[in-house]
């Protein structure tokens, strides 16, 4: 009896612990990214941001989070209550499930499924359901417009993302993200962005295509996390706060958390598809399971920094221009890349 109990307890405990690891990671990462974003933004804008809570304000994200937790949870009288309540959690779930297939290290991946890359694309579009629900349920016209915008934007930018993933899959021959990362192991030269670990001729020919694909995936990833210049669903100066206008307190925090968690996800996708994931840029130097986590997070973090930098520099596009960029610029270029990569690989 006791034996069964411990076994059960252990199994449940172990799986809970394993699946909760990303959650802990998300919370910590969001705190760090929040702090980084505020500080980077401030220094871009010639100011210093918060300085008083702790050394250079390092405790401020925690204080912000505590404040959000204490806020009153306001639910508008005429809203669709069920949808309104569940929307933030659905949005967050969409982000969270994506962490299941992120290869943090050679030994840690939530679920080493063979359809990892495909799963990521699918999970990414799951978030939009939450946003659409929030926009619809708020019974606020601005929120509704925000939700609808979000849906159209996600649909448009899923396509460049998926096409970019296809190109990587063509080169590596696997949808399993762990395999994709292992394929690129062994130093910077083996990264797919530089043509992958292929013979020299092929590599040189592939390089222009992979570089373009990498850039396009990066642009599409900014659009997918709804950040400037693609921050339409919540375009502050146009739609007040877009889909989360009516949210407050914990539910708003969920959207916030989801947004920043998503920021990490897309960066991680770019990193594991194109920049070798957890593999060390210096071959065997500083490589290993623990170093893997380090490299993975650092690389993803670099991307987040670039996204923050872009956000605080550029103005916003217009809705029709957003569609134009997606359908008439990125998608045709990706078709060209697919053709090119395919031909090179066949030759």
């Amino acid at each position: 009896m006791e034996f069964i109990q411990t076994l059960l307890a252990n199994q449940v405990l172990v799986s809970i612990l394993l699946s909760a690891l990303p959650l802990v990671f998300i919370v910590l990462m969001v705190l760090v990214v929040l702090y980084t974003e505020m500080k980077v933004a401030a220094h871009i804008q010639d100011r210093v941001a918060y300085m008083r809570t702790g050394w250079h304000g390092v405790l401020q994200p925690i204080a912000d989070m505590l404040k959000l937790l204490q806020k009153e949870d306001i639910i508008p009288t005429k809203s669709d209550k069920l949808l309104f309540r569940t929307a933030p959690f659905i949005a967050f779930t969409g982000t969270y499930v994506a962490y299941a297939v992120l290869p943090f290290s050679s030994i840690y991946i939530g679920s080493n499924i063979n359809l990892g890359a495909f799963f990521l694309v699918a999970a990414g579009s799951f978030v939009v359901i939450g946003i659409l629900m929030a926009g619809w349920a708020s019974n606020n016209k601005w929120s509704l417009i925000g939700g609808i915008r979000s849906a159209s934007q996600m649909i448009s930018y899923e396509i460049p993302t998926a096409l970019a993933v296809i190109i990587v899959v063509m080169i590596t021959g696997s949808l399993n993200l762990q395999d994709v990362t292992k394929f690129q192991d062994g130093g910077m030269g083996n990264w797919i962005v530089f043509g992958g670990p292929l013979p020299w001729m092929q590599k040189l020919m592939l390089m222009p295509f992979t570089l373009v694909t990498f850039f396009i995936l990066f642009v599409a990833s900014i659009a997918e996390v709804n950040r400037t210049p693609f921050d339409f669903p919540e375009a502050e100066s146009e739609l007040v706060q877009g889909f989360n206008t009516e949210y407050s307190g914990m539910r708003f925090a969920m959207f916030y958390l989801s947004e920043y968690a998503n920021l990490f996800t897309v960066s991680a996708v770019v990193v594991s598809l194109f920049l070798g994931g957890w593999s060390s840029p210096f071959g065997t130097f500083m490589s290993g399971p623990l170093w893997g986590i380090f490299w993975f997070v650092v690389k993803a973090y670099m991307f987040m920094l670039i996204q923050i930098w872009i956000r605080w520099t550029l103005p916003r596009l217009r809705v029709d221009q957003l569609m134009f960029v997606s359908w008439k610029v990125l998608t045709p270029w990706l078709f060209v890349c697919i053709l090119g990569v395919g031909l090179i690989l066949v030759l």
Partner: protein
Amino acid sequence: MIDLTMLQPPTLPTDYTVKLGHTKTSTGKTIRTEEMIVNMGPQHPSTHGVLRLEIVIDGEIIVDCIPHIGYLHRCFEKHCEQMTNYQQIIPYADRMDYCSAMTNEWAFVLAVERLLKIEVPERVEYIRVIMAELQRIASHLIAVGTYGIDSGAFTPFLYTFIDREKILDLFEMTCGARLLYNYIWIGGLSHDLPPNFIGQAKDFITYFHPRITMLNDLLTYNEIFVKRTANVGVLPKDVAINFAVSGPQLRGSGVNWDLRRDDPYSIYHKLEWQPQIGKGEVGTVGDCWDRHIVRMREMEQSLNIIEQALAALPEGNVKAAIPKRIRPEKDAEIYVRTEASRGELGYYIISDGTTSPFRVKARGPAFVNLSVLPEIVRGGLIADLVLTAGSIDIVLGEVDR
């Protein structure tokens, strides 16, 4: 005890009826569609205050736009009639366009001075010009910065505020106030310039020239910004004149009209400067980008004016001899128009021979400029409406008075 239900704003009779339509879906089913009426404001972040725009949208396309103003109505004109003397009105005039208080009080003071036929000393005119042009730069900086926010770029806003702080420091040094000055008085100024003003103002000029270039690089010539503002909210020349639009908005439409030159007052005719007009460099003449670039270039012109005025600043008294009690003759009336930061600011004053005016009408540029908004936003997207309204650069204190 206030009945809270009574505090709900009354539903305003808008004569617009929502048009119903039908659309066929791909499966051949017919669905009903209708236009949506949305309230933009008074608490919307990009209406620059408490402007309320009732917009009718079809999807995201603006079908109609009805501005509702008056949320900031402070009975300026009634107040003026109730004051016991003319000097008391100057602080109220400050509060009309609070982003550009110097030009406001100057316009009012100029009207009273002309009503009394007072000539002010040369030094006063020079100092007034310096102050007004500094104020114009400060006001345009707000316009440009908030326009950046409207277009989604937050950073230029803070850059412009850093520069504006320096101008406000100059004002504070001169008269003690940073926003509402009460500096220009009837027949002169409240104080003479402090001794180190000229040096600091010159420092500011040398500091600010490169900042304009930087702002242009960051915002004006940004590819996305140009894409957003070119060919948006086009205000044709004839419409602009018909709606008596003035200031940068009028010049943005390609009309070469500046009251500092065309209806001269003070010493502007002695100085070298050029009115800037929109030329449609990236799109059509009179689009949002043109209005923006006119403001950017006007700042440079203002710097020129300040530089010359500082160099030519004569010595002398800063107060003219004026009667102790200001009492214009009976039935005297005057309309004086000046070029404030946002355009033609006119004061129409009727005197009845007492120490307080019989009627004061303030013709605010923002009020008139805003009235053209519905004409130029139809057919655009919501994002265009935000940018068009931003390019008009309204200050609700002046619109609602």
